């Protein structure tokens, strides 16, 4: 019995510039039946995108298929000539990329780009192609399907652009569609719309699909079967229900466990009796651009925001991109002086600019950034990076400094030998730990964490959260934890502040957010977080109240 797609013992390798051979995919086999959606799941570097690309006969530069076969509809993509492959791409197999924004040409109208596939392959007359595109826009629930094609890419939102890139893939009537993390860069409330559109279009067209993702909950909504990958090898294959409820492989269980973080145990109430909060923000207004006569910036990013962080407690700040949560962290750290309002550290009013704050104030509050790659100077060794705050704040030198560096590395569970390495030689999780160690080197009281787990794989992120909790117990820290991911915020915070368009919506206790949410936006935000339940997407979208608030947004 031949399936629609058969991958047999696929091996893929690359030659490094020192002439060493690296095996990337180590013998992967699986099938996709007609009309079936199979998800490839795994952490970064597991080979999931690489495998998906071989379905179009494409390898990234430097890589080559070493052995095995990739049979799509009876044709082996690994052995076809480049000309035959090009003929299949777009008509037989289509690709929806992760970043739709990067996939569209900003200088051309959307319609011209969507019908390009039909034009290249001479599939149908242009008028017919445009009519089909409008039909697809309607099926993908895009607003104004008749006229949206006349716009340019910058005139539509991120979620709409992602659906338009799906329309671009579907116009050639492919039998297999590859989705490469299409919702990873979107906010949860947008993700839900995009997922719903994808699901209905795929079901209506009876197409087979490959869905590449690292998010089990998203995959659970759309896939029939799941392939779990790690290090270029298949760990486990099963139907969605099997994987979710009865995972056999330990790695799959790790992935599942990382999805159910241990809820944060509220610290004993006695500590709440401290009279002075660790950090307080009073009615801060801040923004970017030229300042007008009244001292108000042209583009406001924060409007009259107040919040309080008690000693030994953690405050979560949650909201979609553009809600002002990172700006709040920048104001707290003194990187963006507020137009009005105050920031108080331990009851003392601080200057708006970091340059004017005292060294001690600067020491007591440290900031940790999202992208560990850019937050560590690539030209300096780990020891130098961690050692600088030691010298700067505490005047440590020589052997005392060296000893403290080793101690800090140990605190973030890294070996002492790591201090001679450069950041480029570390993994993402290790870099984020170094980032944390640098903040800890100052002996701070408050640490501002700006999306620090967002760029990490699920399992690694869970380990970093665990580490943060341990450090809090040992060092009596308070965290401001900024994230767009509700489950990580719940895993570590006592209070959650919801933000929208630069304003505070409401502040809720983390353990009862669903019950105590009053504002319609917070309810929508919390309800939009995907759950590990294959029926979740159909369930929420059928809820009339939810659909109404989603439409209002």
């Amino acid at each position, binding site marked *: 019995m031949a399936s629609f797609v058969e991958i047999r013992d696929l091996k893929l390798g690359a030659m490094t*510039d*020192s002439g060493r051979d690296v095996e990337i995919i180590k013998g992967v086999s699986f099938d996709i039946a007609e009309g079936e959606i199979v998800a490839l799941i795994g952490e970064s570097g597991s080979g999931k995108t690489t495998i998906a690309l071989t379905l179009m006969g494409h390898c990234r530069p430097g890589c080559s298929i070493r052995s095995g076969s990739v049979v799509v509809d009876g044709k082996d993509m690994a052995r076809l000539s480049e000309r035959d492959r090009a003929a299949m791409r777009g008509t037989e197999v289509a690709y929806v990329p992760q970043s739709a924004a990067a996939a569209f040409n900003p200088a051309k109208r959307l319609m011209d780009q969507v019908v390009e596939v039909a034009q290249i392959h001479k599939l149908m007359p242009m008028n017919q192609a445009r009519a089909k595109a409008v039909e697809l826009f309607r099926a993908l629930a895009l607003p104004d399907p008749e006229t949206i094609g006349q716009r340019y890419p910058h005139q539509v939102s991120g979620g709409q652009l992602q659906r338009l890139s799906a329309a671009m893939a579907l116009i050639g009537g492919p039998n297999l569609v590859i989705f490469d993390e299409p919702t990873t860069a979107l906010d949860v409330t947008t993700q839900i719309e995009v997922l719903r559109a994808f699901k209905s279009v795929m079901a209506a067209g009876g197409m087979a699909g490959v869905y590449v993702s690292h998010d089990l909950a998203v995959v659970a909504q759309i896939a029939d079967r799941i392939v779990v990958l790690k290090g270029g090898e298949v760990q486990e294959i099963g139907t969605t229900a099997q994987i979710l409820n009865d995972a056999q492989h330990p790695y799959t269980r790790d992935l599942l466990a990382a999805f159910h973080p241990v809820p944060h145990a509220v610290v004993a109430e006695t500590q709440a009796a401290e009279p002075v909060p660790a950090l307080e923000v009073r009615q801060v207004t801040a923004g970017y651009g030229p300042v007008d006569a009244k001292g108000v910036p042209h583009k406001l990013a924060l409007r009259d925001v107040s919040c309080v962080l008690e000693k030994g407690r953690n405050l979560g700040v949650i909201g979609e991109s553009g809600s002002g949560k990172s700006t709040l962290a920048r104001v707290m750290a003194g990187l963006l002086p507020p137009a009005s309002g105050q920031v108080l550290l331990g009851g003392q009013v601080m200057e708006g600019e970091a340059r004017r704050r005292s060294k001690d104030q*600067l020491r007591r509050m440290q900031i940790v950034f999202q992208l560990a790659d850019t*937050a560590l*100077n690539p030209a300096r060794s780990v020891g130098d990076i961690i050692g600088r705050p030691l010298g700067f704040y505490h005047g440590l030198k020589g052997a005392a400094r060296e000893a403290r560096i080793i101690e800090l590395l140990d605190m973030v569970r890294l070996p002492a030998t790591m201090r001679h390495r450069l950041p480029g030689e570390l993994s993402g999780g290790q870099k984020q730990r170094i980032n944390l160690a640098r903040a800890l080197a100052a002996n701070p009281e408050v640490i501002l964490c700006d999306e620090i787990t967002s760029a990490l794989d699920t399992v690694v992120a869970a380990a970093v959260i665990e580490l943060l909790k341990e450090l809090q117990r040992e060092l009596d820290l308070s965290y401001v934890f900024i994230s767009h991911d509700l489950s990580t915020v719940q895993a570590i915070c006592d209070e959650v502040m919801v933000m929208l368009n630069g304003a505070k919506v409401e502040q809720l206790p983390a353990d009862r957010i669903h019950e105590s949410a009053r504002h319609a936006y917070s309810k929508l935000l919390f309800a939009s977080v995907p759950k590990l339940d294959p029926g979740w997407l159909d369930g929420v979208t059928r809820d009339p109240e939810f659909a109404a608030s989603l439409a209002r947004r």
Partner: protein
Amino acid sequence: MTARSYSNGLFGYRLSAVGTVAALVILFWVFIALFGPVLTPYPPGEIVDMDYFGPMSAQFWLGSDYLGRDMLSRILMGARYTVGISLAAVVISCFMGVVLGMTAAVLGGWFDTCLSRFLDALNSIPSKLFGLVVVAGIGSSIPVLVGVLAVIYTPGSYRFARALAVNINTMDFVTVARARGERTPYLIGQEILPNILGPVLTDMGLRFVFIVLLLSGLSFLGLGVQPPNADWGSLVRENIGGLPFCAPAVIMPSIAIATLTISVNLLIDNLPVRIRDRSE
């Protein structure tokens, strides 16, 4: 799978064949510049040949010049002026340009605006003309030449360093350093400089070539190194009268200028590549 390990990877770097040849030519001229006076077969200022514009012979390897002086000795001596003045000028101009560029990028605001406009204005004066006017005005000596060449090439170096530093300045690690309360000298020296050093050195090599050519140009016009001393540019000028006789006295210094500048260019285009595969 390390069967094909590259044994020519020197300290984790690999240099192409063209780059190796270019590096050898540059090393040769540096050696001449350092030890030229020891190697000269005749005193470079003395008339030793009875003939003028003499051909290449066993006695005078590169012929003789318009007065009958030994060409080989004069080229060996000239290397010192050409390489030395150019090197001093390029080091000064790049140092000023890079330090000012990084400072402007980090401080921003009015400092950046004023300095950028001032150096743009300086840049808009044609370099040869500027050199001519200054040298004609205050006379030619080696310190004046070095100073003029350095000033002419500072704005370009500043623009280049500033553009690189502006990119680095927006990185999170610089933001972290600012949030820590670091001062400008630390930001410039420790956070930004190590990350722009590679391109800056490349730019310096390129600028060296421009300076050699401009210096030779000035000397050719009679405003560079003054007789009886001579750099390669003035050697070409002195002997230009020998051109109708196909005298080696014109061709040889030209070849010297060409080999040095082309080699530096080729080396920059083929800089040693770091072997990135460090996962073993």
